[in-house]
């Protein structure tokens, strides 16, 4: 009876300890994942700005004209430009 009680109590205590440790590990893991996601989100935001900058530089009329001149193309004067409009486009 005495040994049985001790075994039962030991089991209960062990399960509780394992449970608490496991729960703590899960919570810590979740916290790490959250922090990691936050960092990732932050990095994505910065990447978006960097890529927006890259896209703006690549599409810049200054860059386009400069590229054209480097490739021996002649850029037209402002008064000689004819803009072809795509239906539905606002530009």
């Amino acid at each position, binding site marked *: 009876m005495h040994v049985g009680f001790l075994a039962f109590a030991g089991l209960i205590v062990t399960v509780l300890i394992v449970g608490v440790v496991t729960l703590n590990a899960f919570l810590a893991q979740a916290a790490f994942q959250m922090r990691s996601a936050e960092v990732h989100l932050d990095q994505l*935001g*910065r990447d978006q*700005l*960097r890529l*927006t*900058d890259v896209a*703006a*530089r690549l*599409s*810049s*009329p*200054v860059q386009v*004209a400069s590229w054209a001149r480097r490739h021996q193309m002649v*850029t037209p*004067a*402002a*008064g*000689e*430009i*004819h*803009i072809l*409009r795509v239906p539905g486009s*606002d*530009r």
Partner: protein
Amino acid sequence: MGRLLVLLVVMMLGLTGVMARLSVLQLREGGSYEERGYSQRLHTFTLPAQRGSILDAFRQPLALSVEARDVYADPRFVQDIEAAAAEIAPVLGLRIAQVRRSLSAGGSFSYVARQVDLSAAQRLEALKLPGIGFLPVPKRSYPDGPLAAQVLGYVGTDGDGLAGLEYQYQAMLQGTPGQLRQEMSPSGQPIASGVDELSAPVPGDDLVTTLDRQFQYQVQAALAAAVKANHAKGGTVIVMDPHTGDVYAMASYPAFDANAFAQADEAIRRNTALVDAFEPGSVNKVITAAAAIQQHAVALDRRFEVPDQMLVSGFTIHDSHPHPVEKMTLGDIIAESSNIGAAKVAQQVGAPTMSSYLARFGFGRTTGTGFPGETPGVVPPLADWSDATLATIAYGQGLAVNPMQMASVYATIANHGVWVQPRLATGLIDGDGVFHPADASPTRRVISSATADTVTRMLASVVQDGTGTLAQIPGYQVAGKTGTALKVDPRTGRYGRKYVASFIGFLPASDPQVVIAAIIDEPTTIYGGIASAPLFQQLARYSIQRLGITPGEPVALPPSALGLR
């Protein structure tokens, strides 16, 4: 037994002492120790806010903040200064001597380079040089380089706008920095159950401008070509919508790259369209004509006798070229840009009325754009006017305005007599992406619609038969005015031999959609009709394409005594 008792007493005394000290620590000094411990554990970090972008009218970024690195050295840990400097310098594009100075500086911290591009910083990081560290910082990027640089302005290394729109809208663009308060262990790890308070930074708003970067590019390219072709000192162009006051493009030449603003001369960084004043010359005759018509001081068919020079209060004024005495109507005076004719018209209007019309058109005060450093120009007070002042102001000498003020005069004529405050921004986009439009530009009626339309007819005759024929565009009726203004020599304080040539106009005359001011500083071909009208014409042709302007019906030209028509 006696010794045991002594030992017990000693132990009791010792324990009592410990208990007393513990009580003092806990009860009396506990608060201050707790506070000291707390302050050692608690760390507050400022989280910088993302600065808002500046966008063009089609939401294309003209300025935005990207991630960069400050590169620093802890000279105590740099092992071989010469070798390290030789490795760092080419990656950062610096001179070896410059890097060597940073690496051999005293103390534990020295900047090697600030706001270094991420790619260069990553290349440097890969070298794993001891004593070299990196700090993440934002960097302002202007993807279009020299495009609208004088309008956009620039940002200092501390992230504050120093000029232009960056300075004007600093409060909206900068955002609100956040704060992170955390309890940390001595090893720098956050304590799980400790204080962890995050006040997230609020990013700055994005500023939506009225500028169109494609238009701006064409304007800057055409202006640069015109300045070079005329061997001029510089130039200014403004393109705007006369109905809304929205500025499509605003350019000053020479230009500079806002990404490297510190390397540009301060004079080049000025937005000459707003911060510099010039004597407008004959483009100012439009005000003389408008005042005369509005006040019924001169009938359209009245013929003035116009010699090529005239003595006024002991001061001889001249026309631009010698000619016999001619009969001219008001329309002829404007078309042929006669200074003597304009002076005679102004004499009919009178000084007080002329002065009031200058004020009504906005001279002597800023245009209301709020642009930093905008000049109100210089208009002599009426009490100081002599007959000679009235005569010279009639043809645009003896007063100074900024180019935007002058463009606004023509926008007022084009807008049927209603002045609209020019603007460079249409609104703000907040952190949630919601667009908050700016209030519509204030307006005021300056002259009647009938007067404005009559002046438009005269401006159309300038381009058809007068001094502005190089501004003609086949199929479109252009209205505009040439200007050739003498500049004051700053050394002598008197008029020298240098000129400002200008052409300001709009099209189509019957239903104006765009106003263009083309101003060239010190061209070798001094006349506005020769130096500036072709530039106007280039940009007007582009405007037709860019804005989809249709020709409209031509307006009737005013009566002429010269047989121009």
